[in-house]
């Protein structure tokens, strides 16, 4: 089975100390590896202003993870952990592999078309002159 890619973002309370956040990340890594998934990237975006208030908080500490897994069970478990955790106020998991695949496809398509374009330019240049000729005869 093909591998799936997920984006997992969670927001912690802004007043939590860094070690606590690191602990949350490490437990997530642990559960992920237990379930046969692998965390590709971990980014701490730091304290950011949220667009709206969550739990009466205006700011939050954003953490961004990229997870690769062959099945979706991992997400269930990770989300359960996040839900239970007190410091986490919001989380979101998005499956992205299909969109990235589409992006790759479009990119390849574009490159192929770019490579072909010089040959195609000459016939399009001839078309307007032919149309002009038709107009002249019509008039």
């Amino acid at each position, binding site marked *: 089975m093909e591998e799936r890619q997920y*984006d997992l*973002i969670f*927001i912690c309370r802004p007043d939590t100390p860094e070690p606590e956040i690191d602990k949350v990340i490490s437990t997530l890594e642990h559960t992920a590896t237990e379930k046969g998934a692998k965390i590709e990237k971990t980014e701490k975006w730091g304290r950011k202003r*949220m*667009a*709206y*208030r*969550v739990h009466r908080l205006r700011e*939050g500490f954003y953490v*961004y993870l990229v997870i690769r897994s062959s099945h979706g069970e991992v997400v269930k478990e990770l989300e359960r952990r996040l839900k239970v955790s007190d410091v986490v106020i*919001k989380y*979101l998991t*998005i499956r992205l592999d299909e*969109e*990235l695949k*589409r*992006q790759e496809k*479009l*990119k390849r398509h*574009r490159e192929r078309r770019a490579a072909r374009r010089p040959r195609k330019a000459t016939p399009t240049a001839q078309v*307007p002159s032919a149309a002009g000729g038709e*107009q002249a005869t019509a008039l």
Partner: protein
Amino acid sequence: MAEDNAPQHHAPASGSQHHGAGSGPPGSSGPRAQGGRPGGPAKRGKRNFIRKKKVCRFCVDKVDFIDYKKADVLSPFIQERGKILPRRMTGTCARHQRWLTVAIKRAQNIALLPFAAEL
């Protein structure tokens, strides 16, 4: 540019032909059809403005994937109140608008963009 000019020249010509053919009802329908053309507002008495053709910003930049994480890219496409702007306002093409709405909704869910204006 040359292709743009050609139909504009044609449209008045066909209108004048209608005038010559029938001075009655068909003649009156001629100019109305001409005025309704979006391409040729040049000869319209009062409302004499030329609308600039809007181009999809994502097509210009050749974007294949709209990232929901980049709130600064998405924010021009929402209203102050948090509503997603329609295609007719922004000029985004259908395909990119489809991706854009998905990206905006994702960003809203993780509090990068607002659902509605704050009080």
